[in-house]
C-alpha cells in the first residue's frame, strides 16, 4: 500500500469519528450555504451563466497553444518578463534566481496554491530568505506549520482559542476570543512587512490573452499590497489559467465569488499589466510571470478529462462534498483537496499512488452540480477508477472480475451460488470477512430473503 493511501485511511478514520470537529465544520459552512443561495438568486439564469462560464474556459483550454502565445506576447509588450517551467524544480530555480539577482532579503507572499504545489516556501527559506504569508488564513497555517485545510479557506478547521494561543506564542500578543481582534493583530503585524519587503509573490486567477493582463481575486487586500509596495512582483501560474479576453471575466469573476464564497463579487479583483508605467507614482520596477506545466499537459492529453483544467479553484465542490465535510481537508494529503483534488492529483502525481482518492466519493454528484464551469467531477472519479483497474489491476481486482465473469455467464452456477449464499448468510454475519473489515466495522449484513430475485419475479402474480 503506498504511504499516501495508508495516511489517508488513518486520518479519514480518525476524523470521521470526531463528531465535535465535524459539527464545527458544518457550522462554519452554514453561513456559506445561505449567502450562496441568496447571491445565486440574483442571477437571472444561473444554469445558462454556467454554460457561458464553461464555454469561456473550454475555448481557451482547447486552443491553449495559440491563446498562451497571444498572452505572453502581450504580457511582454506591457513590459513584463515571461519564464517557463516544465516542472516544480524549474519553477523554484527561476524564482530563486530572480531573488538572488535582486539581492533580496525579505519576501512577502499573497495566497497562491500553485506555490504550495511546488513547495516554494521551503525552497526560499532554505536559501536564507525570510518569507511571510500575508493572507490571514495562510499566515495562521504558516505559523502552525501545517498545509492549508481547504484551498480557499485555509484554516477553517482552527478554533479561535487555538489562533489566540498561536498569536500569543509567536507574536507575544494578549489572548483574546474575538475574531475581529485576532484579525487586527495580524493586520498590525503584517503592515510593516509589506513596506519592507523587496519581492512580492502572488498567484493569478486568470491570464487574459487579449490584453496580457493577469487577474487576481482576493478579499483582504493583501494581494493588492503585495503587488504595490515591493520592488519586484513575481506571479506564479499554471498554464491553464488563460482566458481569451476581458469579456470572459464579466461572467467568470462574479461566478467565482458566488460559487466559492457566496459573495456577489470578491472584494478585490485586480488586473495587472506590467510593472510601474511611465508617469505612475508607485508599483514594482520589475514584473515577472512564471508559467508552470508540472503535468498539466498530461491532463490535457486526456480528452475525456481535459475539462478538469477548466477549474477556476472556487472551492464550491469542497464545500458541498460529504466526504470533505466528514474527513476534513488535511486527510487528502494533496495541494488541492476535495473532489477536484481527487480528480486531478492522480494525473499530476501518478495514478498508482493516488488512485485511492477516486474512492473518496459517494458519487452523489453534489460536486458536479456545484461547479460553476460544469466540470463532470463525479464521473471523472469513476473514470479514474476504471483507468486504475485497467492500468494496474490488483490481484483482488483480477480474481474478482474473472470469477464474476465466469459465474455470470453460467446461469445454473449463478443460481446455485445464490442458494448457497442465502443459506450461509446467517453464518457469515458472525465471521470476520476478508477484505471487508473496514466496511463491516460500522455496518451489519442484511437479512437473507427466502427467494432469489429471479424466483420472486417468476412467481409474482401479475
Amino acid at each position, binding site marked *: 500500500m503506498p504511504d499516501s493511501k495508508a495516511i489517508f485511511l488513518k486520518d479519514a478514520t480518525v476524523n470521521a469519528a470526531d463528531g465535535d470537529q465535524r459539527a464545527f465544520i458544518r457550522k462554519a*459552512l452554514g453561513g456559506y450555504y445561505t449567502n450562496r443561495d441568496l447571491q445565486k438568486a440574483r442571477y437571472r439564469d444561473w444554469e445558462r451563466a454556467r454554460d457561458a462560464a464553461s464555454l469561456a474556459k473550454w475555448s481557451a483550454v482547447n486552443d491553449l497553444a495559440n491563446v498562451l502565445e497571444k498572452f505572453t506576447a502581450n504580457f511582454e509588450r506591457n513590459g513584463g518578463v515571461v519564464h517557463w517551467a516544465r516542472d516544480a524544480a524549474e519553477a523554484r530555480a527561476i524564482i530563486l534566481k530572480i531573488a538572488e539577482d535582486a539581492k533580496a532579503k525579505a519576501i512577502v507572499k499573497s495566497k497562491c496554491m500553485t506555490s504550495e504545489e511546488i513547495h516554494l516556501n521551503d525552497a526560499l527559506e532554505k536559501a536564507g530568505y525570510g518569507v511571510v504569508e500575508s493572507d490571514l488564513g495562510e499566515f495562521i497555517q504558516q505559523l502552525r506549520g501545517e498545509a492549508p485545510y481547504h484551498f480557499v479557506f485555509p484554516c477553517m478547521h482552527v478554533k479561535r482559542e487555538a489562533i489566540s494561543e498561536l498569536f500569543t506564542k509567536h507574536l507575544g500578543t494578549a489572548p483574546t476570543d474575538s475574531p475581529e481582534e485576532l*484579525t487586527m493583530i495580524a493586520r498590525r503585524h503584517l503592515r510593516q512587512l509589506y513596506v519592507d519587503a523587496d519581492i512580492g509573490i502572488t498567484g493569478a486567477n486568470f491570464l487574459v490573452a487579449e490584453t496580457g493582463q493577469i487577474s487576481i481575486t482576493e478579499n483582504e487586500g493583501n494581494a493588492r499590497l503585495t503587488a504595490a*509596495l515591493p520592488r519586484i512582483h513575481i506571479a506564479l501560474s499554471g498554464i491553464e489559467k488563460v482566458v481569451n479576453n476581458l469579456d470572459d471575466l464579466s461572467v467568470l469573476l462574479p461566478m467565482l465569488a458566488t460559487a466559492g464564497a457566496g459573495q456577489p463579487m470578491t472584494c478585490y479583483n*485586480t488586473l495587472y499589466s506590467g510593472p510601474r508605467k511611465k508617469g505612475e507614482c508607485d508599483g514594482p520596477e520589475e514584473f515577472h510571470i512564471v508559467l508552470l506545466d508540472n503535468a498539466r499537459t498530461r491532463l490535457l492529453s486526456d480528452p475525456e478529462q481535459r475539462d478538469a483544467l477548466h477549474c477556476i479553484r472556487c472551492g464550491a465542490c469542497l464545500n458541498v462534498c460529504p466526504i470533505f465535510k466528514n474527513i476534513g481537508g488535511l486527510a487528502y494529503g494533496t495541494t488541492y483537496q476535495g473532489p477536484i483534488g481527487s480528480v486531478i492529483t492522480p494525473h499530476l502525481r501518478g495514478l498508482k499512488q493516488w488512485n485511492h482518492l477516486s474512492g473518496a466519493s459517494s458519487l452523489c454528484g453534489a460536486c458536479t452540480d456545484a461547479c460553476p464551469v460544469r466540470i463532470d467531477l463525479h464521473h471523472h472519479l469513476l473514470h479514474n477508477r476504471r483507468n486504475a483497474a485497467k492500468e494496474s489491476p490488483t490481484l483482488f481486482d483480477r480474481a474478482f472480475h474473472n470469477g464474476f465473469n465466469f459465474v455470470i455467464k453460467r446461469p445454473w452456477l449463478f443460481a446455485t451460488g445464490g442458494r448457497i449464499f442465502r443459506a450461509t448468510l446467517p453464518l457469515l454475519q458472525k465471521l470476520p470477512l476478508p477484505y471487508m473489515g473496514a466496511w463491516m466495522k460500522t455496518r451489519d449484513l442484511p437479512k437473507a430473503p427466502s427467494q432469489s430475485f429471479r424466483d420472486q419475479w417468476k412467481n409474482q402474480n401479475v
Partner: protein
Amino acid sequence: MSDARSDIFARIREALKVKAPKPHLKTDANPGKTSTVAKPWLPDGGETADASLTILAEQLAKLKAVLIRVPDKAAAAKAVAELSAAKNWKKVAFHGHELLRPIAASLPCETWEADASFDKQRLEGCDAGITTCESIVAQLGSILVSSATSGGRALSVLPHVHVVVAEASQVVPDLGEALALAKARHGDQMPSMLSFITGPSRTGDIERILVLGAHGPKELYLVLIG
C-alpha cells in the same frame, strides 16, 4: 537540450491533437462575445440610469460600504470635510486630480497629494486616502479604480479609510460595460493596475466569521455627485 518554452508548446500541441468534445451544456449558450451573450443571465444591473442607481445603493448597503449622494462639487467637499471632522482624521492623502484638490483644501487636517511625491512609509501613516475612479458597476456594487485615476496602486488600499469621489454619470450597469469602457478609454495603453473594489476589505478566515478591514481599508465611502 531544448528550452522549457518549446518543450511545453510541443507537449500542448501533441496533447491537443485529440479533440475534446464541446462541454455538455444544458442550454443553447454560444461562445462569442461573452458579455453580450451572457448579459441577460447575470445579475441585473438596471435598464435605466435611475434603475442602476437604485441597484447600486442596495448593493453598497449589503457590502457595508457607505454611499453619500450630493448635488454638486461644493456639497461633496462639505460632506468629506464633515466626515473628516467626525472621524478625527489627522492626515489624509489624496490623488492629484482637479476634482479632488478643492475637496482636500477644505479638510480640517493635514493633507498630502500622494502621487506628487510618493512615499510608502508616509502613506502608511495616513488615516484616509481620497481618489477618483474609472467607473462604478451597479450590478455588483463594485468601484473600478486604476493606477491612473487613483494615485497609483497603494493609495486606494493602504490607508485605513478609502473615500471615492465620482460623478453619477460614471455609474454603468454591469461588469461587461465597465471592462469595455476601460478598453475603449485606454486601448493598448492600459494602466498597470485596474482594480474592482467591492466593499471594504474583509476576511472570514477565522471560523468563517466576517471581519472588515483585513489588510485593506476598514471603511469605504462613495461620494456620488449629481
